[in-house]
């Protein structure tokens, strides 16, 4: 158990728990209380972005390095901006311009970065488990910004935050995650986070990309979107990964859209207050109809806004341990 209960008066509103993790590697390892702690902390940091001076001194003098071994726009920018709003210094490290292209290993690269006095390494890497490996080999904090098809915990957290903001709760909701589940770290982080917070998770996709094996982890696996469309509170549409689209696992784009895309026809059969999410980047007209993505029930841009608050909370918390 990672949380200690402080002695408190039962009448007080003070939260009784403190954060004790040095790293954020996955949602699988967090307890529901820890997830709630991050979301509550994010609530407070969200306010910072509404001020005219959008900066607090919480991480003044700390150094964060964004280490991305895969392309990313929003996650990388979001972490950088989050760190800057906490007054940390931010260094950008990218594979293409680094000694990694000369054959240096991940751990050696990280140790060299750390030797410059870095406090937090934010890591995106194509290999599942890369963040765990790094955390075992460095003294500073490690935040997983996506490791292969394993997890993308801050995406999972910002999805939870956005759902909680929209419905006032997570417990009892039915959330469908739709698309290429097998290759998606977002789907896995969603699954762990949502289950721990008491939601029901339905994975929807073609059998080649949405294997029944996920039922063992607690998801409901469905290969026909229309079977469940009327019972879903939240739809999280995953991006069609074109880099995989030529493989035999993947149907044609048109076939995918017709069976698994969020089309107008399907949208009209959804619950009236259905909430639409997408981790981005979107393929408009393929997995999601453009006007649904831009419509009043879409939370897609809220996800981006909330991502900043959630990442501020995560950086603030791990830097204190």
């Amino acid at each position, binding site marked *: 158990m990672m949380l*200690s209960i402080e002695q408190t008066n039962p009448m007080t509103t003070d*939260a009784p728990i403190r*954060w004790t993790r040095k790293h954020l590697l996955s949602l699988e390892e967090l307890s529901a209380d820890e997830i709630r702690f991050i979301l*509550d902390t994010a609530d407070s940091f969200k306010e910072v972005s509404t*001020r005219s001076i959008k900066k607090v001194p919480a991480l003044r003098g700390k150094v964060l390095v964004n280490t991305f071994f895969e392309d990313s726009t929003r996650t990388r920018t979001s972490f950088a901006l989050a760190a800057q709003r906490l007054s940390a210094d931010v260094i950008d490290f990218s594979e293409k311009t680094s000694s990694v292209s000369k054959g240096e290993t991940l751990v050696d690269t990280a140790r060299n970065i750390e030797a410059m006095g870095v406090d937090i390494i934010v890591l995106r890497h194509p290999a599942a488990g890369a963040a765990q490996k790094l955390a075992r080999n460095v003294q500073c904090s490690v935040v997983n910004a996506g490791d292969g098809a394993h997890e993308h915990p801050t995406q999972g957290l910002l999805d939870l935050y956005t759902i909680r903001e929209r419905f006032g709760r997570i417990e009892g909701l039915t959330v469908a995650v739709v698309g290429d589940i097998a290759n998606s770290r977002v789907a896995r982080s969603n699954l762990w986070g949502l289950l721990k917070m008491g939601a029901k998770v339905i994975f929807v996709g073609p059998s080649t990309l949405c294997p029944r094996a996920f039922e063992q982890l607690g998801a409901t696996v469905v290969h026909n979107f229309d079977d469940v469309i009327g019972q879903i509170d939240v739809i999280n549409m995953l991006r069609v990964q074109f880099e995989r689209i030529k493989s035999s696992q993947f149907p044609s784009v048109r076939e995918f859209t017709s069976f698994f895309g969020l089309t107008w026809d399907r949208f009209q059969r959804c619950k009236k207050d259905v909430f639409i999410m997408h981790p981005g980047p979107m393929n408009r007209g393929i997995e999601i109809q453009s006007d649904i993505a831009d419509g009043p029930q879409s939370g897609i841009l809220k996800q981006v806004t909330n991502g900043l608050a959630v990442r501020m909370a995560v950086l603030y918390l791990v830097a204190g341990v």
Partner: protein
Amino acid sequence: MRTQYDQADVHRLIDQLVSEISAAFLASSPLTIIGIRTRGETLAGRIASGLTDRGFSRIARGVLDITMYRDDLSEIGPRPLVRPTDIAVDINQKPLLLVDDVLFTGRSIRAALNALTDYGRPSVIRLAVLVDRGGRELPIQGDFVGMQTGDLSRDHRVNVRLSENDGRDEILVESKH
């Protein structure tokens, strides 16, 4: 050593604060009252309603959480929960009354002043506290002070309890041992 002040004492101290504060500001002019979480917020609410009873009609309220501004963040170890700050009002160019329950080292107030700077520039900032327990580490003093205990050593604890938060009004000064 253990000294206890009951509900009547707390009410009397707050009444006395309200009366000093009302003499120092104009009832017809704007006044921003900002409480420091958690009990400063409650206290600010009581002071605001006391001032309203005395004819203050242009009071704006806000709540400040100073955690993000603490100067001991790297030393305190595991993070406490940061609660939201809620200052929806424009604090520029009008007097601001900052309210906290206990004044000790002055570091919370330093953090609060830094935080307020990020929201604007009040014409003047005054500090009201229920208890001043001495032990200052910074050149910061209260303008309106409910009671002074004199310099208490570090092994003493001053607990302010307010019914909204704790079920009863009470001030408890006791030795930790």
